[in-house]
């Protein structure tokens, strides 16, 4: 959509105006919106619903798709089909993540700013080795940040922590289990 005021730039801001009890929506580009002094910005809870986005990115599959393929895209645990996932924008269970995995990377990339892999917290019960590896990765990042901020004391503390964890890893995953 093009800005209603300048007719040049793409409209990126929706302005809601109350005119004699009627709510009127106007579409402006960010420049015209900034110039317009009598407006309130509208921040809808969900500026664009996820299922609308997904449905546009993954247009309906043609029914010519072979039955085998369609079966492959039905989650055996909760019965969600890929189409149902697209229309709701939600998964039915944990297994949907493996069922729809061929498309999942693409979906996550789009809703997660290009990211596809988790780097954060891991449940303690999940496995000591993986947990330690991820912790080391995380500490290294924090160490880099500390060095950049010239907080060398903190960086040294983090380095020692990394060293300790590395020793733990080399000694096998059993220590600290």
């Amino acid at each position: 959509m093009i800005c209603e005021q300048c007719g040049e730039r793409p409209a990126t801001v929706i302005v809601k105006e109350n005119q004699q009890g009627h709510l009127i929506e106007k579409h402006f580009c960010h420049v015209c919106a900034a110039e317009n002094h009598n407006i309130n910005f509208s921040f809808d809870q969900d500026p664009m619903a996820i299922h609308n986005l997904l449905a546009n990115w993954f247009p309906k599959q043609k029914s010519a798709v072979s039955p085998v393929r369609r079966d492959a895209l039905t989650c055996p645990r909760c019965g969600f089909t890929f189409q149902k996932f697209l229309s709701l924008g939600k998964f039915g269970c944990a297994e949907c993540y493996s069922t729809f995995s061929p498309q999942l990377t693409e979906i996550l990339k789009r809703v997660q700013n290009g990211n596809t892999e988790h780097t954060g917290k891991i449940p303690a019960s999940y496995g000591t080795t993986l947990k330690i590896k991820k912790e080391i990765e995380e500490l290294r990042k924090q160490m880099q940040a500390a060095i950049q901020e010239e907080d060398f004391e903190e960086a040294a503390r983090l380095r020692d922590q990394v060293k300790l964890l590395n020793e733990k890893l080399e000694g096998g995953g059993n220590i600290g289990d």
Partner: protein
Amino acid sequence: MAIDRFLQPRASSWMANNGEHVDIAMSTRIRLARNLEEFKFPYAFSEDEALKVDKAISSVLLDKGKECGYDFTHISVEELNELQREVLVEKHLISPYLANSQHSSAVLLSDEEELSVMINEEDHMRIQSLQSGFHLQEAYDIANKMDSLLEEHLSYAFHEKFGYLTSCPTNTGTGMRASVMLHLPALTMSHQINRIIPAISRLGMVVRGIYGEGSEALGNIYQISNQVTLGKSEYEILQDLQNMTEQIIEQERRAREALNANSSLLLEDRVYRSLGVLTHARLLNTEEAATCLSDVRLGIDLDLITNVDMSILNELMVFMQPAFLQQYAGRPLEAKERDLARAELFRERLADNGINTKGEDFA
């Protein structure tokens, strides 16, 4: 009934007015989304499963919560009438989604209302930690501690590559949404906010106006939160949000100084007019009340007003909402009646210069 104490116009700890940068950053919230491995997610599960999920999570929190120093009260959503649900939404203790839940859902609330665990919202569990002021790390530590406690007793839906598995792909990974509520009157008045918002969105964060259906930035209050939950660790997400918020706070301070330097008489006039409205009006609608509250807040921050307690303004922001007013009045009120009740509430509360005792009812 156990629920009663949470429905009273009693200040939650997150409404207190303390903490760093509290003049601008009013409150901080961390939310962690978690699901249990053995059950289907709420979009697909049966009523029977919903009950089992509630039981599994609640029993851990009710039994073991004390180990972490929390006494939880379990409240089933279906036992609440519409008004009671609305009151909990207005207090930010449950989400509108949970209030309208179609299946068995519940909330566990800590005594001070700084922790709430929603069960069978969009995910099996939403751990929410609320803090007054700008305290991302503290709020996270509390939520994280509760998460680790639950995880000891329950098995989570987790994937090595994708992290915590959630109903919506926008939450996959850390399952964490961190947000800070900011009062930005000077940036709004000087229209600089219009340039800041697009910049923030480009950095993987979102800005929203808070409260009210249309969610315009009523009362110049904005909520800034992380959008991305995958590929960044909790630490990085919090750091990014911390940095961004600090920059906005700095900008707001500069804008306030400029405003004060360039148009101090106009500003003073506006602040005192708003105080006049809040202390003397006979009818007050939500929008006017929110605008005047924002002005008076700014007046206090700029030391123009010295005899009003800020924490009372925080409470009024919550208690002036429709469901609270009706709860207070003990009956349903039409919009016009609410405006009358709202004006009364403000007059009463501000009459004694707002000298506040924590936890005291305004009745």
